[in-house]
């Protein structure tokens, strides 16, 4: 009972995250590309309820940030409060590529800015970029994991089940894929693509490539399990009764690798979401000005950002509960598989 409610909680949490990312345009006060060159690396705006005389006001409000002398230090200009309004008009955005609207959940009048999570190096609102970035990152993680696991499962089962020549060939291919300098391939790939691939297209291509290259590890693990599962007594018995290969795979092998698969999925999704940090290190991340979680984290490679701009860690902070939720889901699916199976039916 406790486990099921934990699973339900994580499902709800994931749904909330995915929904808010889907409706990123509405929930974010600014466009993800809008630069404010006066406010690079501005810390999060504090929301006040009590003005400086000590009197509470009806609306929460913010003060305008101005630069202090000495470069990139900011202080509040406490002379004028700017109220936070709901359902403000702002930059236009599209939802799901279809509906266009320009109302945002909240906002303030210019020249004040409400940077809930501070701003990045160009003065762009990090909160907005987080929401829009989730679209790319979460999607990328899922797509790449899907590719990897599909290929890995198919080839791993083939290798383990049939053994002999297929096993040898597939395993040598695994080693080939693991040994090749993918660094080079990825670097070269970007140089070969026509210049007019949009950044999102180029990134999708990379993610597919990573997913396709990554099948090697799961395939190896799965093949190992299948090899031993193949020799189990009940399988040999079923075979002697004339069961076809497909039946054996479906009913006897797949359940054996289910645990492995779920663990792999729970591990791969966050790894692929963050693969972009490494890609950005090599200069292959998603292109400007499109945001992504890995790209925001990648700015932390610069020393000055790492030690003083703590708000750039926020994608990591969002990812922790997301990963925990995926982990809980994967655990629950393994442990309650019979219960969940009945529940789904």
């Amino acid at each position, binding site marked *: 009972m406790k486990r099921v409610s934990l699973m339900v909680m994580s499902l709800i949490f994931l749904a909330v995250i995915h929904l808010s990312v889907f409706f990123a345009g509405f929930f974010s006060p600014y466009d993800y*590309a809008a630069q404010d*060159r006066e406010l690079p690396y501005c810390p999060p705006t504090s929301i006040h309820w009590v003005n400086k005389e000590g009197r509470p006001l009806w609306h929460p409000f913010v003060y305008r940030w101005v630069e202090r002398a000495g470069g990139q230090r900011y202080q509040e200009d406490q002379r004028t409060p700017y109220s936070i309004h709901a359902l403000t008009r702002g930059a236009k955005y599209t939802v799901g590529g279809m509906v266009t609207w320009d109302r945002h959940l909240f906002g303030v009048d210019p020249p004040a800015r409400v940077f809930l999570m501070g701003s990045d190096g160009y*003065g762009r609102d990090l909160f907005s970029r987080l929401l829009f970035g989730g679209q790319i990152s979460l999607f990328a993680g899922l797509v790449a994991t899907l590719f990897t696991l599909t290929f890995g499962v198919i080839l791993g089962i083939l290798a383990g089940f049939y053994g002999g020549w297929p096993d040898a060939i597939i395993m040598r291919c695994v080693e080939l894929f693991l040994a090749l300098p993918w660094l080079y391939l990825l670097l070269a790939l970007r140089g070969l693509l026509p210049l007019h691939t949009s950044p999102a297209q180029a990134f999708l291509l990379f993610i597919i490539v990573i997913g396709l290259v990554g099948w090697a590890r799961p395939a190896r693990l799965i093949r190992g399990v299948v090899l031993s599962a193949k020799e189990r007594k009940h399988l040999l018995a079923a075979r002697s009764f004339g069961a076809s290969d497909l039946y054996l795979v479906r009913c006897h092998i797949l359940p054996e690798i289910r645990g492995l698969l779920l663990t792999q999925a729970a591990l791969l999704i966050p790894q692929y979401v963050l693969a972009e940090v490494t890609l950005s290190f090599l*200069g292959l991340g998603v292109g400007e000005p499109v945001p992504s979680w890995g790209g925001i984290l990648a700015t932390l490679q610069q*020393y000055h950002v790492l030690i003083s701009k703590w708000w750039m860690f926020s994608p990591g902070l969002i990812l922790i509960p997301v990963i925990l939720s995926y982990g809980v889901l994967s655990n629950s699916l393994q442990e309650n598989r019979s219960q969940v199976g009945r529940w789904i039916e």
Partner: protein
Amino acid sequence: MKVPISMWLLALLLAGSLSSAGFASAKGSTNPQGGGLVPDNQPSAYSGHLVVALRSEPKTLNPVIASDISSREVIGQMTADLIHINRYTQLSESALAKSWKVSSDERRYTLELRHGLRFSDGAPLDADDVVFSFRVYLDEKVNAPQRDSLLVGETPITVRKVDTNTVTFALARPYASAERLFDSVAILPRHLLERAYSEGKLLQAWTLNTPPDRIAGLGPFRFKEYVPGQRLILERNPYYWKQDRSGNRLPYSAEITFLFAGNEDAEVLRFEAGETDIMNRISAANYFVLQQERASRGLQLYDLGPDLEYNFLLFNLNSTLPAGAGEIRRKQQWFNDVRFRQAISSAIDREGMNRIVYHGRGAPIWTHVSPGNRLWFDSSARRPARSLSHSRDLLKAAGFSWRENDGTLIDHRGVPVEFSIITSSSSNERTEMATIIQQDLSELGIRLQVVPLEFHSLLDRVLETHDYEAAVMGLDGGDVDPNSQMNVWLSSGDDHLWNPAEAHPATGWEAEIDRLMRQQMSTSAPRDRKRLYDRVQEIEIEEVPVVFLVSPNLLVGAKDQLRNFKPAILDSHTLWNSEQLFIQDRTGAVR
């Protein structure tokens, strides 16, 4: 035989504006001190060692094949040249050659070597070594990178020995500031390299694994030890020819250790932790961080003003394009219109770029000569401020208009104006500049894509295949003198990036620039040269061959216990006077 008087005037002018009592001579003097400023401080003992970080590993110790920055930095400490450009005053001064005479037709330079010079292994230097060195550099089969800089109008200079201490160089025709040609052309030891050269094995000589006694040079330090991946150590050259005012033989420090740091952030970490003594080329953001820590860590930071590096947005104006590049050809119709380029230049927020990319530690530029180049900067030229309305007027005049519903810019055929900018993915700064340009031009209704490419892919596209539309790149002059930029600004030059190696200049203004550059190369009067070079800069502002963006300031740092530290705009910024540097703590003890 006579020395131009204007040279003297220029020298006196600059000598007056410098704070130290350094001599600035264009002719060369017989002062045995031979250059550099007189050191302010002298140590009590000669036992100290300096620790410096390099951002990449040196690859070789052979001056003939070294092409990367780190190798040249290390080799620069181990070798010396005949006539040296003082990095601080930016003027040439005598080095191994104690004086030189110029013939009346300005085509022959007769150099007299100092007496009693020895290589770091004790072998004596004479004119045969000089002749051998130049023979090696000029040999086409050896293919040394130095060969191209020793060409005067396609013809290499020739060298002839007169007697054991005198050599004569002959130029094909008069060449302005010809003595700058000799800077960083290291004199090689004949006794160690002649055999390898005659056997054709010169290019394999002097690798990092060579035993130290097989390498010799005339620089302040000599090779001691190399540990792969970790460090390279140089020790004091006991036969170094420079002395300080009291007659003590330089260098003051006993050793220099070069550590390998990988990238700038790693270098900052080690500098902050006190593991290195000097840091070169700090980025603006890290400079800010170090400033906070300065007092507690005992560091001194220096902002030397704008560097010689210039960054620009360049358009593909090539006449030869790869097959199937119809799209690019179509867009070249826009790029070739000077009003389009002027409009773009007028729309870019250089101040904002300076603030974002360099944290305000930079200077917007409108020509390739940055304000840091004090000798050649044209301060009187008019530099236009940012104006979007001016851009719109220019675009209207060029036949562009705006679509009603979304404000997209369209040309006279109704095609929306969109193009891509490629940048080097390893340069954060240039990618940031491209992003800022992207945002600025979106206000004009132009949609841009920023495509970071790996550096070699970028070079391939710009220099070889010409398969690109626009690019943001940066170049470093290397030297302040205009002659160092010939290959970039001559239309036939290989580095004439937007249209390399043209057979004929494609436009009238390019022909004019060619004429001016060639003329200044053979003019000797500095005032005339400056006038010609000013005109080149004015043409750059009018015709906008490339859109110049910003120049960064040069930011360096050192421990405050480092004495005689005088960083300069010219490379090597921090170690050009390494023979005078030493570490001394408050008690006066030398480390």
